[in-house]
């Protein structure tokens, strides 16, 4: 730019000197200073723009066309590769989501199975609709076989969890007589007995009440009275310590068929 301005200033005093000087002198006041300021601004703008262009040019201008084409193709290759990566990652994500879903389903079904087994084993308290069988026995006339019959009847009618005087009946439970006293799993049973059973209350109550059924058998003893109530909500306690097995061991999975 300075190359083009130089000849002008050289020429200005020569060419425009005689005619321009007088006019300029007349107007040379605020306006002249303003013009000079405008020139300062112009110079400043020129340099600013040139420097900005230079900064930009340092990156792109020095590259020749082939180089730019190469850079472009590199960039598009890179973009293609990244696009592929995105696709494959999306697929992986989808697979993970699927397997997570499957896993969640498996966990849910296992959890349901576990809670069923827990109820069956008596390690957790259980609640639900059921019946309360109350047996009055002021003379101690009850025998284990009567109680076994009653429990058998309950289970036959669909009872899922049973307790006698707050003792949970489990797979290894047994009624017995020790020292002339009725015991359940070595714990004495005091009359009156309260037998709670979770199950279809109407069916269970009906099964107990059939002629010659459990109620009749119990009441065949002179002093024993038994009555059944159907309840919306029965809570059966857990067995505090499940029995530990000494002799039985599970058959290894590979030996099963």
């Amino acid at each position, binding site marked *: 730019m300075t190359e083009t*301005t130089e000849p002008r200033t050289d020429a200005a005093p020569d060419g*425009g000197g005689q005619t321009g000087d007088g006019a300029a002198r007349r107007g040379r006041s605020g306006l002249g200073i303003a013009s000079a300021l405008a020139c300062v601004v112009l110079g400043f*703008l020129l340099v600013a723009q040139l420097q900005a262009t230079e900064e930009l040019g340092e990156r792109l201008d020095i590259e020749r066309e082939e180089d730019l084409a190469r850079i472009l193709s590199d960039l598009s290759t890179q973009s293609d590769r990244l696009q592929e990566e995105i696709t494959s990652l999306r697929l992986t994500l989808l697979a993970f989501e699927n397997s997570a879903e499957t896993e969640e389903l498996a966990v849910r079904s296992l959890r349901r199975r576990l809670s069923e087994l827990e109820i069956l084993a008596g390690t957790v308290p259980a609640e639900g609709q059921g019946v309360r069988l109350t047996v009055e026995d002021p003379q101690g006339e009850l025998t284990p076989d009567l109680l076994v019959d009653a429990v058998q009847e309950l289970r036959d009618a669909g009872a899922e969890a049973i307790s006698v005087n707050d003792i949970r009946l489990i797979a290894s439970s047994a009624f017995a007589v020790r020292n002339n006293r009725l015991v359940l799993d070595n714990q004495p049973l005091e009359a009156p007995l309260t037998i709670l059973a979770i199950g279809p209350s109407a069916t269970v109550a009906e099964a107990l009440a059939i002629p010659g059924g459990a109620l009749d058998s119990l009441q065949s003893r002179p002093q024993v009275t038994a009555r059944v109530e159907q309840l919306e909500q029965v809570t059966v306690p857990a067995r505090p310590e499940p029995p530990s097995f000494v002799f039985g061991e599970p058959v290894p999975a590979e030996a099963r068929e």
Partner: protein
Amino acid sequence: MIAFVALLIGAVIGLVIQPTIPAPLAPYLPVAVVASLDALFGAVRARLEGTFSDRIFLVSFLSNIVLAVFLVFLGDQLAVGDALETAVIVVFGVRIFQNLAGVRRRLFHA
């Protein structure tokens, strides 16, 4: 002479300050520069023809810049890309050449 010195002073200030142009203004500076160059060459021609006036120079300087920047801004707003910017550059480029032609006729009588 004063104008040339002022131009140099401005250039030196620019070199010393090393201004960084704020990004939103970046598209407007080139057209502003071209527009003011037109005013400058117009002033040189007027000076040579003896019709130079500070008032006209100032008015043309400012109006050129304002008009050029406004047209580029308008181009952005109308989403015509760089079309209006190109138009402004071309028009001012033609005018610069016309002014230079005037300068040339005065200096070399050709």
